[in-house]
């Protein structure tokens, strides 16, 4: 123990002392906390690639400041997220925190954002209520009510009367179930059954069997990014497509990250979402091309674009404050900011700090030999209905 202890003490002290990033006065550190390992690692990869692409395209200097992007792996565990957030703020003097792959992880960092007065830019987690947990939370991804309510409206307009909902049993899933259901029933539709599948559940077969027994017009689904393919395949395997059951949902189930590989099972699925890699705009074409080039052909998904926009938001805010990187100044600059993202026009609602954006209704189609979510209807400037209802 003795030799080990003394060497250890020296090594520990050295490591602890050495770790603050080269912090000169002119640098602004953005702490990006993501699940880089474990089941949500693909989210982390897309986010990291999106943020890095922005840095690469726009250089690391803005308003006279040098931007340092520090990416940390929280392994998807909330207490680790919290520790990393604390470390980034206290030790690396991060001017903003970014990322947060899942709702509990975004919530974990909220008290630190509040106490340290550092903006927390949520670029993934999509439970509507997250932004209420701290006045310093800003979101560039989306909220589930934002996508679910328009989906219900579209279903009502297109002759769907009976729906079974299947959602993953955690915050975002509950949000999706609630907002789809309420909107749909208010418009005269019927929810036959509401099924919640556990988060750790690779096999949807028993739940889909229930759907088959219920014989609805459509099944509305929310599963976290990554579970879409297994859901789609089992949907077809049950013969639900042949039985005339429409598959509708939020865009998570036809995630661009996986869509190309899901295969024809996904054809015809209709989803409502804020981003598709097939979005027809010059900004998006440039974004997709640059992203695929930088990442060995990997197609960007809504996670990548949210991280890209998160960086964009920080850059724009720094320009507006003329380099003042203090938390309250950045936050003030972010509120009400509007710009053109690869997904279309977006802005930050100054009241709720949540993103306002177009929601597109899309259908999975084969274009140029690959599957894409092809947008065919646009609902412009959608605010998060959950918070809009309160204000």
């Amino acid at each position, binding site marked *: 123990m003795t030799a080990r202890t003394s060497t250890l003490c020296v090594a520990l002290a050295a490591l602890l002392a050495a770790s603050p990033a080269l912090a000169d006065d002119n640098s602004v550190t953005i702490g990006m906390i993501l699940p880089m390992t474990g089941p949500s*690692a*693909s989210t982390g990869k897309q986010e990291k690639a999106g943020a890095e692409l922005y840095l690469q395209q726009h250089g690391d200097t803005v308003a006279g400041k040098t931007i340092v992007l520090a990416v940390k792996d929280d392994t998807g565990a909330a207490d680790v997220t919290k520790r990393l957030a604390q470390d980034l703020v206290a030790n690396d003097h991060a001017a903003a925190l970014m990322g947060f792959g899942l709702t509990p992880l975004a919530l974990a960092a909220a008290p630190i954002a509040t106490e340290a007065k550092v903006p927390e830019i949520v670029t993934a987690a999509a439970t509507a209520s997250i932004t209420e947990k701290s006045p310093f939370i800003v979101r560039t991804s989306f909220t589930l009510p934002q996508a679910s309510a328009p989906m219900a409206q579209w279903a009502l307009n297109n002759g769907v009367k009976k729906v079974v909902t299947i959602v993953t049993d955690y915050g975002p899933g509950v949000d999706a179930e609630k907002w789809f259901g309420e909107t749909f029933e208010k418009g005269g539709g019927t929810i036959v059954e509401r099924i919640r599948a556990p988060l750790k559940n690779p096999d949807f077969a028993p739940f889909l069997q229930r759907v088959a027994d219920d014989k609805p017009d459509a099944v509305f689904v929310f599963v976290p990014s*990554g579970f879409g393919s297994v859901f789609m395949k089992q949907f077809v395997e049950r*013969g639900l497509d042949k039985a005339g059951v429409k598959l509708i949902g939020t865009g998570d189930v036809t995630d661009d990250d996986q869509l190309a590989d899901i295969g024809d099972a996904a054809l015809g699925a209709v989803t409502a979402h804020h981003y598709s890699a097939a979005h027809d705009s010059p900004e998006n074409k440039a974004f997709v091309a640059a992203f695929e080039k930088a990442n060995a052909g990997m197609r960007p998904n809504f996670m990548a674009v949210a991280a890209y926009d998160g960086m964009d938001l920080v850059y724009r805010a720094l320009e507006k404050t003329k380099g003042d990187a203090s938390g309250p100044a950045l936050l003030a600059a972010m509120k009400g900011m509007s710009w053109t993202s690869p997904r279309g026009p977006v802005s930050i609602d100054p009241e709720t700090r949540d993103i306002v954006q177009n929601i597109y209704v899309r259908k999975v189609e084969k274009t140029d030999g690959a599957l894409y979510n092809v947008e065919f209807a646009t609902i412009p400037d959608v605010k998060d209905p959950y918070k809009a209802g309160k204000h």
Partner: protein
Amino acid sequence: MLTILFDGVAYGMLLFVLASGLSVTLGLMNFINLAHGAFAMVGGYVTALLMERLGAPFLVTLPAAFLVPAILGIVLERTLYRRLYGASPLDQVLFTIGLVLMAMPIADYWLGAEARQVHLPDWLSGSLSLYGVGISRYRLFIVGVCGAIAAALQIFLVRTRFGAQLRAAVDDARVANGLGIDVDRIFAITFAVGSGLAGLGGALAADVVGGVDPSFPLKFLVAMLIVVTIGGSNGILGALFGALLLGVLDVAGKYYIPSIGAFIIYGVMVATLIVRPQGLFSRGDGR
């Protein structure tokens, strides 16, 4: 009702193929190989990549999904695993967790974090109706293949000379050596077969579980361990019954009482081990 039963059997069969290799190494060789899932992942990747890059038909990739992990298994067995045969369970657990931790980033580095899909040929997609019972073709295929594997394994281990030699080698390696049995070779082959089975299981499971990704080795680790523990040390049959029991209970539980679905398998395992610490189908000797 019958559909659910059938789904449960199919799911159980899948668990069986994933776990059968583990039950060989753990039940027969007394080696706790938590890296078993890594071999399954290799098999899944072999099938997915062969189909994607070379356009190989699904059926053709399956032997490769057995062989590649089996060869990898032999190499690792000869170089690393064999050093730990006599080691404490703790050392085996740590060592194989270490291998898992290494395997996952390697897969991530080479192949990316997103799941790779296995695309089934048309004749295996969709479902058919038998006497009004909707049956997925692929699940039927799984039941057939896995049943055949179970039978082959059972014959291999019980009826063949190799099986007898293996059992002798496990019971007492020194005595077996004295009888002229090449214990080293027997263990290496057994380990390779176990790894190959894992790979085959991974390839077959890939479609059902939404593809292969780097976290595959851990995703099914617990389920595989449960199958083997419930089945007990009596090699293949125990694991088969354990897997079928779990599969049926799990699927039926999720269908009928979704609210407690996930409890069932853990509950069954703990209850089983309380009543029979050696598993349901053990030889009865306390090892």
